[in-house]
């Protein structure tokens, strides 16, 4: 487990702040989902968020690109405050890539069209250039031969890698992953994690909601444990896994690592 001690691959973390969340609160009706969230993510940081289901981890990262609205506090992404101003929201969304548990590829478009759609329409990239970029990222996720197929013809793991490539085509500065491997068969999890590890090694700022503790150990600079809408504990992965301090963290870790 030599990996645990150092930042693998010499990935550097700068002092520049990528995301800053201050005193953020969110309710679903009467239900207080996120309570006083404070989080500062520096550029190049790789953060894994874990916690029991219903703890608000998905909601937290969905707030970062305004898929969910927060009611109190502030979120700043690359210095742009996330307000109800639609222009700010669109700007932040085009800088922040997101991968979903269920991939959410567009089933009516071929893989290559899935990848080039946003660059062409949002970034106004010429079609040829967008296709070249798309092929570059498809090669990166190791499925360039599937470019002309439709999502429905691919395996789950392939679909998730296409989804990652689709986000990358927008050249995002931050990537959010919302349980990217939870809907996959076990033998496909590795191919997706490998892609994410590769991305981390290239210095992408990443926030991953995941229960893949091996991935957390290998890649994360910081692991955050959430419960009942609060950040209960955060630490470097080694400390987090070896010496969890909070009782709930201990219980959670014993449950998911216990088998």
């Amino acid at each position, binding site marked *: 487990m030599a990996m645990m001690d150092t930042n693998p691959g010499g990935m550097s973390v700068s002092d520049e702040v990528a995301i800053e969340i201050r005193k953020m609160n969110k309710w679903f009706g009467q239900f207080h989902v996120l309570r006083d969230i404070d989080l500062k993510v520096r550029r190049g940081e790789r953060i894994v968020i874990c916690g029991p289901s219903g703890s608000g981890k998905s909601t937290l990262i969905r707030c970062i*690109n*305004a*898929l969910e609205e927060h009611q109190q506090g502030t979120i700043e992404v690359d210095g742009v405050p996330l307000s109800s101003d*639609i222009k700010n929201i*669109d*700007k932040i*969304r*085009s800088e*922040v*890539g*997101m991968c*979903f548990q*269920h991939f*959410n*590829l*567009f*089933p*009516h478009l071929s893989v290559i069209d899935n990848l080039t*759609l*946003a660059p062409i*329409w*949002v970034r106004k990239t010429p079609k040829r250039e967008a296709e070249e970029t798309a092929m570059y990222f498809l090669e990166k996720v190791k499925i360039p031969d599937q470019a002309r197929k*439709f999502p*429905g*013809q691919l395996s789950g793991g392939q679909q998730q890698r296409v989804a990652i490539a*689709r*986000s990358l085509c*927008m050249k995002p500065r931050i990537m959010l992953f919302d349980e990217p491997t939870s809907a996959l068969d076990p033998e496909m999890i590795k191919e997706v994690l490998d892609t994410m590890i590769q991305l981390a090694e290239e210095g992408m700022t990443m926030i991953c909601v995941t229960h893949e503790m091996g991935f957390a150990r290998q890649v994360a600079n910081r692991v955050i444990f959430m419960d009942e809408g609060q950040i209960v504990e955060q630490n470097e992965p080694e400390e987090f896994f070896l010496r969890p301090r909070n009782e709930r963290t201990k219980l959670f870790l014993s449950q998911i690592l216990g088998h």
Partner: protein
Amino acid sequence: MSDMHAESVAFVRETALPPAVPPIAERGAVRWMRINLFSGWINTVMTLIGAFIVFWLLSGLIPWIVNGTWEGDSIRDCREILQDSGGGCFAVLRERWPQLLFGFQYPEELRWRPSLAFALLFVAVPPVLFYKLPRWMLVITAVFPFLAYWLIWGGTAISPIFAALGLVAGYLVFVRVEKRGLVAGLLAALVAVVAVWWLGGALADEFSRSLRIEAVPSRQMGGFMLNLILGVVCVSLSVPIGILLAMGRQSRLPVVKGFSIVFIEFVRGVPLITLLFVANVVLAYFLPPSTNFDLILRVIIMITMFSSAYIAEVIRGGLAALPKGQYEAADSLGLDYAQSMRLIILPQALKISIPGIVNVAVGLFKDTTLVSVISMFDLVGMIRGPILSSTAWLGVYWELWAAACVLFFTVCYGISQYSQWLERQLRTDHR
């Protein structure tokens, strides 16, 4: 080999057996019939009853068609020719065919104009229906409504030309101004459209003799032509309006949402026939006496309102069937509302809605016959009115209604076949 005992004697095959034909009861038509028609005594009885019904129907229908006559100028001629052969009096179709198609008032020497418009329809519609045709052909589709209007109604060409120019001007202005906001763009476009139309109206009055072909007023339209005009116009208007209403019903803006809901619920809750009566009678009370608000236009507005409410609900079903993740994926890529609707949501929602939309379209086309109730002489109105009440053809029901059925069935079956083809084309999930 019959004397061979496999258990005790070693065996090596030296000659291959040729494949044999299965026994007679296990192949071809006999097998098919045994499985599908005579598998058990209940099915056998049902088959026999069915065969009897088919025989009974055909024994009436075939002589009616085969022995029928196409000669003669009245039902009395038919009776003389047919005697007791049981044949149909199809002479009525031969003699009244132009009336069935064009109504009894459309000038005979001008019938080539709507016929030409009908022929052009088959050039104008395919670019919309078959997306693999080259995109420039859509220009034909865009020009067609104005050309067809001019051909069918006649008069000076200035009006349809300026009607088209007005829309082009509106579009150009909208594209320019839209960057400063959607509402500003729409308003500016509206101003441009109205300005060009006003100019066109003034010019058409001034130069009403130039570019002129003989005008035919709306009350002279009739026959299957009227059904086709109403059907084509109303379907092509109500699909886009239905899409807007369906999106409006999902909108976050309370005014848009409220309007859509009230419109849809009201129009769906009212019988079409009452809307047509409103179009026919009541609207005339509300309009100033001098205005000449064309009856066909009024009917088109009513039928379009009616079917667009239904189509809106069909499309809402399609929108609701899409997983929320599709909206979120579009949002997370930074697509704005118009882009995500156009590129992601609507293509999928419309694909799901095809059977429902076609259902409404076919229903709408058949419902155009309801205008016969407000004394317009469409195909049904022609048969019920001028033809059946004429002394020559009093009582020739079967032949006329059968002809009406055949005409409507041809169109509706064509629409249905197209929609099934389209569904196969758009299938990308490869189940």
